[in-house]
């Protein structure tokens, strides 16, 4: 028989290089209009990534929320909806979870002027304990700091990602017993009333004694 002289038969499919495009966009907290609830003790508000994923019309755009020290360790091949990226197991043992799945249609470009286009991270309280919903957008368990990025997945492969955001710190609530109510001293009016009336009363008593 005739065999190959060596080497292996080359495959007919061309080799595919998996390069995740690094988009030049950094997720930021929503700045305009000024929102009072931009960061609360368990939620924060991001600007939607408008006009960022224009070339990826078929992709699912996910938000990755990570504890700031663990952001660099996040592997883009992690799949959403699995226990490794489930919200319910965040922050321990899962250090980064994926949520807020959307397609390009949810982020039309350009953004209409006057529209408030934000994403509120932490707004879904109903599924926070529900392990059947690992992609729940549940309230964050602590003040952070957190970092987020957007990741576009086509099928199960990452095709584009934004940069990691800056560190996002949430608010910490103090106990009301730390409020000091001992007062700021006495006002000028009260001191004036007290001194003048005391003097008047003393004069009257002296006059009474002198009179009798």
């Amino acid at each position: 028989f005739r065999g190959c002289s060596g080497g292996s038969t080359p495959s007919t499919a061309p080799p595919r290089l998996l390069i995740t495009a690094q988009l030049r966009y950094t997720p930021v907290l929503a700045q305009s209009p000024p929102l009072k609830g931009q960061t609360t003790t368990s939620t924060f508000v991001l600007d939607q990534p408008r006009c960022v994923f224009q070339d990826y019309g078929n992709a699912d755009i996910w938000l990755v929320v990570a504890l700031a020290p663990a952001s660099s360790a996040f592997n883009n091949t992690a799949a959403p909806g699995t226990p490794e990226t489930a919200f319910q197991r965040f922050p321990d043992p899962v250090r980064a979870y994926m949520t807020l799945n959307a397609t390009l249609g949810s982020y039309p470009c350009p953004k209409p002027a006057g529209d408030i286009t934000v994403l509120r991270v932490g707004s879904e309280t109903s599924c926070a304990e529900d392990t059947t919903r690992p992609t729940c957008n549940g309230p964050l368990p602590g003040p952070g700091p957190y970092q987020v990025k957007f990741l576009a997945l086509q099928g199960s492969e990452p095709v584009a990602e934004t940069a990691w955001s800056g560190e996002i710190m949430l608010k910490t609530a103090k106990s009301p017993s730390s409020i000091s109510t001992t007062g700021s001293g006495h006002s000028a009016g009260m001191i004036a009333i007290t001194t003048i009336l005391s003097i008047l009363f003393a004069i009257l008593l002296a006059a009474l004694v002198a009179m009798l």
Partner: protein
Amino acid sequence: MAKSDDCVHILQGLLVFGNVVIGMCGIALTAECIYFVSNPHGLYPLLKATENDVNAAAWIGIFVGLALFALSILGIIGVIKASRTLLLVYIILMLITFAFEMASCITAATHRDSLTPELFLKQMLENYQKSEPANNSDSEVTKTWDELMLQNHCCGVLGPSDWQEYTSAFRGTHSDADYPWPRTCCVLDAQGLPLNLDGCKLGVPGYYNSNGCYDAISGPVNTHAWGVAWFGFAILCWTFCVLLGTMFYWSGIEY
């Protein structure tokens, strides 16, 4: 003699006039204090819960006002009749009334000074929407705050951030993600529902009340306290002059 008679008559006239003014001011003081005690702005539950009875000064004021009115009549009679006994009784009772009114003024001013924003903030955080109200006064605090926030379009004592900066009884039963601040802080429509719940939760200007309620509280409280304190002070200054004149007149009456 005629000149001295004239002086005496002038002094009598002045004393009668002084007593008439005291009588009228006494009635006015009583009326003012009754008005304050009747809780016209619905803030009494908040003030009661702060363990300072701001109304104490007003209650004293009611009785002092009536006493001043009665004593002024006694004084007028005593001056006209030039009776040493009546005038002595008048002077001593007036001094006692003076002391009580002095206490009322100082109490009103001191209690007013103790009503700082921090006091109301702590009370609101600890009592608003307490899930098991220990007694009636806690649920009254909640009702009073709700009405205050609805009528004055305000939120919290210093602002909605009060609910974020501190934990509270409210926060114990309402999650931060669903209720960053109470629903009464939202701009409500005619049915009493938030105009835009998401807008309110996000804190979009126009869908929530951004200013604090402290001004709405301190306005009436200030009027109350300073009304009692300064009006009482003015009455006492006038009474001081009348009393000195009466003592001088008394010492000039022959037996």
